[in-house]
């Protein structure tokens, strides 16, 4: 209780585009708090001394401190507190699963809803951007080492930013034509506007990070060449989970079947939704089935709607409770009209005589005993096959590690899935080589990759300075 008023048990709502309008456009869905709403939401924070929320944050942002500044109306101070911990707050305020992290541990959540920490982070970051790219303080001029960062996604951007601020000369090698990784090619514009990502990358360039695009490490350079010939003191590998998994079911190579990676890359990175103004096309049927239940599946389904599909199905073999996607993403997809075909598993893609998809044959499932993941194991119901009439199928059942670097880097161990073996500080089994993010853990979240990047940056700093003194 404050000032005798009973504080709201629920978060202040964040305005959103109406579901029926937004399902036809690529503009951002959530519109963000205004200053008054942000201050009011900040006032819900109890300023707990032991700050349980921080323990839920992979980069341990001083959450009560920044929220206090929001409450007091000093958004600039709030921003500088967040930026001490997090290089990409405008990104994290949008795509972090706060409900499983900081907000999960919020005391306010015991009775009612937790403080809207993610919404406040987003507000503060957007306020500081103010439609422009603010410049950070200049980095030290004297360079204390030279580090190569491979990959341009969240883990790499974090390592590059942290080390550049410490005074390292950083080169970031990106295989595609623009850095950003999954933030650029994977997460759609309507969830994370690309201008925000570009701004974060501009900020890094201002810090002196040299971004080399079109450089496919393992091909253009090997890790050994970077260290032995190009003079890098250490190398960080943050190449993510970039290899799409397929179901290995019949008909998967028919025209009209996409991996979620390809579908989203065409639309997000190559801007196929503007075709023919842009040159990259995407093929979308009136009826689309997206196979999978994670965030990538939700992104694909919602993208399909925006491309003009009339009926979009999420085909998932378990029930809604087991879906790995964030509740908010599932809710948004539902509001926009995505049809959830749960407890359903595809068995084959059905083609027409010209090699095009005309249906997805599925079987109904029921849940049995819990499996290794702790979730109830889905089992086929006998004789329950049916065909969904669709012209497009998007496979969004996960991604694995791309082997290009591992295959060309002797002395660096990988596990049975092909992920790089690294300790908690990001050290691999090869001296001077560090790794973090999805390439180590398998596909996870932006913020976990950033948390790994933070630890790796500290560990790289210790390694390089020790080597230089040695």
């Amino acid at each position, binding site marked *: 209780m404050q000032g005798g008023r009973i504080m709201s048990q629920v978060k202040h709502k964040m305005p959103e585009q109406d579901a029926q309008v937004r399902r036809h456009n690529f503009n951002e869905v959530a519109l963000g708090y205004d200053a008054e709403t942000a201050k009011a939401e900040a006032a819900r924070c109890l300023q707990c001394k032991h700050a349980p929320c921080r323990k839920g944050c992979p980069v341990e942002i001083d959450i009560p401190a920044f929220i206090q500044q929001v409450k007091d109306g000093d958004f600039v101070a709030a921003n500088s507190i967040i930026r001490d911990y997090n290089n990409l707050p405008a990104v994290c305020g949008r795509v972090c699963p706060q409900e499983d992290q900081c907000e999960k541990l919020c005391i306010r959540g015991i009775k009612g809803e937790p403080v809207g920490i993610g919404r406040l982070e987003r507000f503060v970051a957007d306020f500081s951007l103010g439609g422009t790219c603010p410049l950070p303080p200049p980095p030290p001029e004297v360079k204390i080492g030279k580090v190569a960062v491979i990959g341009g996604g969240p883990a790499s951007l974090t390592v590059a930013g942290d080390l550049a601020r410490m005074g390292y000369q950083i080169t970031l090698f990106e*295989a*595609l*034509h623009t850095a950003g990784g999954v933030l650029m*090619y994977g997460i759609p514009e309507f969830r994370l506007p690309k201008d925000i990502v570009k701004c974060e990358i501009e900020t890094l360039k201002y810090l002196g990070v040299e971004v080399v*695009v*079109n*450089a*496919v490490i393992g*091909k*253009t*350079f090997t890790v050994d060449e970077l260290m032995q010939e190009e003079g890098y003191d250490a190398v960080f590998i943050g190449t993510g989970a*970039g*290899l*799409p998994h*397929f179901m*290995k079911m019949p008909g*998967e*190579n*028919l*025209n*009209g079947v*996409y*991996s979620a*990676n*390809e579908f989203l*890359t*065409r639309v997000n990175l*190559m*801007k196929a939704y503007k*075709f*023919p*103004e*842009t*040159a*990259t*096309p995407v*093929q979308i049927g009136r009826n689309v089935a997206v196979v999978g239940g994670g965030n990538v599946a939700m992104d694909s389904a919602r993208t399909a709607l925006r491309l003009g599909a009339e009926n979009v199905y999420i085909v998932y073999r378990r029930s809604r409770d087991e879906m790995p996607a964030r509740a908010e993403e599932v809710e948004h997809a539902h509001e926009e009209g995505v049809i959830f075909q749960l407890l359903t598993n595809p068995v084959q893609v059905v083609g027409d005589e*010209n*090699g095009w998809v005309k249906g997805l044959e599925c079987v109904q499932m029921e849940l049995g005993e819990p499996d290794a993941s702790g979730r109830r194991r889905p089992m086929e119901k006998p004789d329950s096959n049916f065909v969904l009439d669709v012209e497009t199928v998007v496979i969004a059942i996960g991604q694995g590690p*791309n*082997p*290009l670097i591992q295959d060309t880097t002797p002395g660096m161990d990988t596990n049975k899935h092909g992920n790089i073996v690294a300790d908690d500080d990001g050290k691999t089994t090869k001296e001077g080589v560090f790794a973090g993010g999805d390439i180590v853990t398998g596909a996870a979240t932006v913020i976990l990759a950033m948390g790994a990047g933070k630890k790796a940056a500290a560990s790289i700093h210790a390694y390089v300075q020790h080597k230089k003194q040695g």
Partner: protein
Amino acid sequence: MYKIIKAEELSAGVQSFIVEAPLVARKCQAGQFIILRIDEAGERIPLTIADYDREKGTIQLIFQEVGDTTKQMGKLKTGDYLLDVAGPLGKATEVENFGTVVCIGGGIGVAPVYPIARAYKNAGNRVISIIGARNADLLIMEKEMRSVSDELFITTDDGSAGHKGLVVDPLKDMIAAGEKIARVMAIGPMVMMRGVAEVTRPHGIHTLVSLNPIMVDGTGMCGGCRCSVGGETKFACVDGPEFDGHQVDFNGLMSRARMYHTQERQCKGDGSCHK
């Protein structure tokens, strides 16, 4: 930005670019390719590296003006730039002294065959080459191919140069004459590669083909270039581009090549798909 040092027309609708791309030129091997993008609105297309000069830091790209992007590339001149060139991508050709190898290039496929034939030659192989085109005007790189081949056969559909017929004709003759062929490398239109594979199959001659399906990233990320090889799905960009021609499902590939025909008809190659 990647500067076009020299743009020249090799035959009607077939262009050669020498492009400044030092990071590609220092590492590339026969059989590898690059992905390029003309400008900010452009699509990413793969092109095989036809030649390279490590000292000058340049690569040669040879392309036929068939799609929206290649038609627009045809308008670029010496001194213009390509926005992106990424590579070298794909696995390099396996090169050893195998004995006698036959290198077959059809149409624009002669361009990627050339560095492979040269690499085979340098490794001590006896190189017999067959190059073909619809007519004499469309025949490219005859001089270059002759310089790296012990024997060179030329075929054209209309007989305006060399033998009138298909590239498989001299191959059939060689096999009939008892020539001991260690392997065949065939690059060209899909029907040609399939045709070569069918000629060599009964004789058990190891036959490689180089695939050029639709790609986006070229690094194994999208799976758009997937093809069935020996019943297994492979990604041409990272598992290839060369595969055992006797194992490749050409029908599936030809079908996948038609994926964007509707959209391609919207593009006139005049920049309408791409501003």
